């Protein structure tokens, strides 16, 4: 069934409304799902927990990136506060489960809900201000939330602003190694991914896009801007909160270092390199940004040792700054050369093979 599209020939509403209409796309999705399910097996055989932890980090980051893309790529509201909203989720989860003994799934929901609430609150200025001003308002949100966590000990847990949580368990199964945690994260990642895919093609998603493209026009055709802007903030922060709560359970500690302004910017970078206004792009961006430092580390250390004979200790400091430099240079490069990001590159590949081998 490797046939390709040759026009739209849907015969029922349900097939017309399907998320993936082409047989090839359906097959791809199922195969990908299958691969994701058995991904830990080879790593488990080699007992490679480190590689698994990288995959877990990517999946967690992807959830946050998808959330930010809904707000930023689809609704056009810039947010520099994604890290702070993740912090709200993470600390909420830590507080409800360490102080009130709630199970982890409740912590994740509570974290998402609380983040949505706080995110909506900071989204209120978006009704009056937009663009740059909004970016600065969310920057303030980031700094205020960070400060609060560090200075209010009931929220931040006092010393070093960290709260420990127990290993999450579900039906007696403890998520106590990377492979088990992978499946926990995978469930939430898939939920987040398909929820977003469906959201952006629904009435709500179209309203978001209308606001992004021209807010005045959107208002005129009857989109309630007040409602949908706040909704975008709420949904996006909910994603951030869930991602933050998962981080907390994953690391078994809520620590503000994981949610700084730098993290917010990292998420923005993910969606820009991945592609604004693309759910798949968010995931690609998360993969790219999370793999980049690892690849850089390995290659720089190899080169330093192999070519110049420099031991690791003397490269360590250079490495951190080199990463920063490459990170910034990549942002600039992508923005100038391919503003639509990796998602666009993927589209180009697909488009090429759509006509292949009979181009033109």
């Amino acid at each position, binding site marked *: 069934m490797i046939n390709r599209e040759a026009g739209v020939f849907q015969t029922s509403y349900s097939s017309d409304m399907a998320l993936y209409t082409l047989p090839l796309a359906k097959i791809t999705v199922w195969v990908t799902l299958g691969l994701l399910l058995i991904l830990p097996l080879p790593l488990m055989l080699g007992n490679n927990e480190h590689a698994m932890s990288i995959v877990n980090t990517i999946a967690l980051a992807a959830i946050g990136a998808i959330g930010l893309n809904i707000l930023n790529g689809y609704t056009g509201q810039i947010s520099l506060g994604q890290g702070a909203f993740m912090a709200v989720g993470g600390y909420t989860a830590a507080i409800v489960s360490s102080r009130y003994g709630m199970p982890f799934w409740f912590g994740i929901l509570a974290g998402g809900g609380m983040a949505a609430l706080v995110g909506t609150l900071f989204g209120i200025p978006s009704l*009056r*201000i937009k663009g740059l001003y909004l*970016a600065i*308002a969310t920057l*303030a*949100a980031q700094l205020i939330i960070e400060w609060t966590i560090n200075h209010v000990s009931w929220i931040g847990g006092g010393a070093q602003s960290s709260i420990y949580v127990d290993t999450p368990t579900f039906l007696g199964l403890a998520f106590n190694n990377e492979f088990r945690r992978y499946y926990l994260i995978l469930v939430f990642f898939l939920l987040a991914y398909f929820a977003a895919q469906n959201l952006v093609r629904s009435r709500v998603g179209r309203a978001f896009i209308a606001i992004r493209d021209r807010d005045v026009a959107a208002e005129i055709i009857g989109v309630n801007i007040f409602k949908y802007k706040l909704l975008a903030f709420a949904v996006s922060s909910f994603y951030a909160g869930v991602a933050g709560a998962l981080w907390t359970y994953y690391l078994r500690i809520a620590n503000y270092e994981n949610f700084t302004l730098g993290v917010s910017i990292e998420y923005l970078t993910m969606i820009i390199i991945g592609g604004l206004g693309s759910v798949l792009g968010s995931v690609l961006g998360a993969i790219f940004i999370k793999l980049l430092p690892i690849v850089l580390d390995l290659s720089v250390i190899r080169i330093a040792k192999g070519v110049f004979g420099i031991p690791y200790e003397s490269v360590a400091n250079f490495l951190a*700054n080199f990463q920063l430099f490459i990170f*910034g240079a990549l942002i600039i490069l992508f923005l100038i050369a391919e503003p639509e990001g990796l998602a666009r590159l993927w589209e180009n590949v697909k488009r090429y093979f759509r006509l292949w081998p009979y181009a033109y």
Partner: protein
Amino acid sequence: MKVSGTMEFFIDLMTNGLLVGLMYALVAVGFVLIYKATSIINFAQGDLVMLAGYGAAVMLGLRGLPLWLMVLILCIGMIALGFVLERGILRPMIGQPLVSVIMVTIGLSFVLQGLVAIVWGAGTRKLELPVPLAPYVVGPVFISPINVVAAVIALVFLIAFGLFFTRSRLGVAMRAVADDQQASMVVGIRVSRVFALSWAIAGLAAAAGGIIWGNMLGASSLLSLVGLKVFPVVILGGLDSIGGAIVGGLIMGAVESVAAGYLDPYVGGGTKDFIPYVLMILVLFIRPYGIWGHETIERV
């Protein structure tokens, strides 16, 4: 520090706050200039300041280089950098969505931070100017001389910019571009040249900021954080008003100094990094265009 609660204590906080505020204003001017002419918020302004600070510190370390020559080289270097940045990475961004433009300056900020640390190491470098250390005592107030120097430089800068924008042809052209790009093109102003010029001037402002802040804090990566502090200042003053940047800087400096003096003992420090942003959020709610900013009325 004086005893808390007395009038002297308040005046002391106020004076030092105002002096620091002028230094904020100096960085804020670079910011406002770019926004005014190109509608771009430059998140890398703090990093330009940092770069200038390192540049100054390194050059002062060279033997036999007189101070005036160092300042001259630094200023020319920063102006040239401003030109290059505008041509190389900002011009391709014309017509791109806002988030891309913001991100490109954030990317620039990372590149500068990484580059500076790779070339000159991450440690703090001393930047010593021939200024006495002992504070002046004016009535009940202690004022450190470097603050006075900073204030003087800031004032000279601000007056010079003020004259430039009202008296010179180029300055008026820049204001015209800020007001309406198309109309300026129609009357024969080369908008691209104005863009480049505003980045060059921002580089110059960064050079001044780098020397002064570098002397206060030492040349280190901390200098780039000064850039973040400038947001509340420019929002309060109005993103496109140079006068606003000065007044905003003064108010913000005074507010954070007074707030830190009175509140720090109760909350355990850090008020300085918190109050300006709270104030900024309030301003954004009540009067988003700031004190003297250009008021755009949009009803959506």
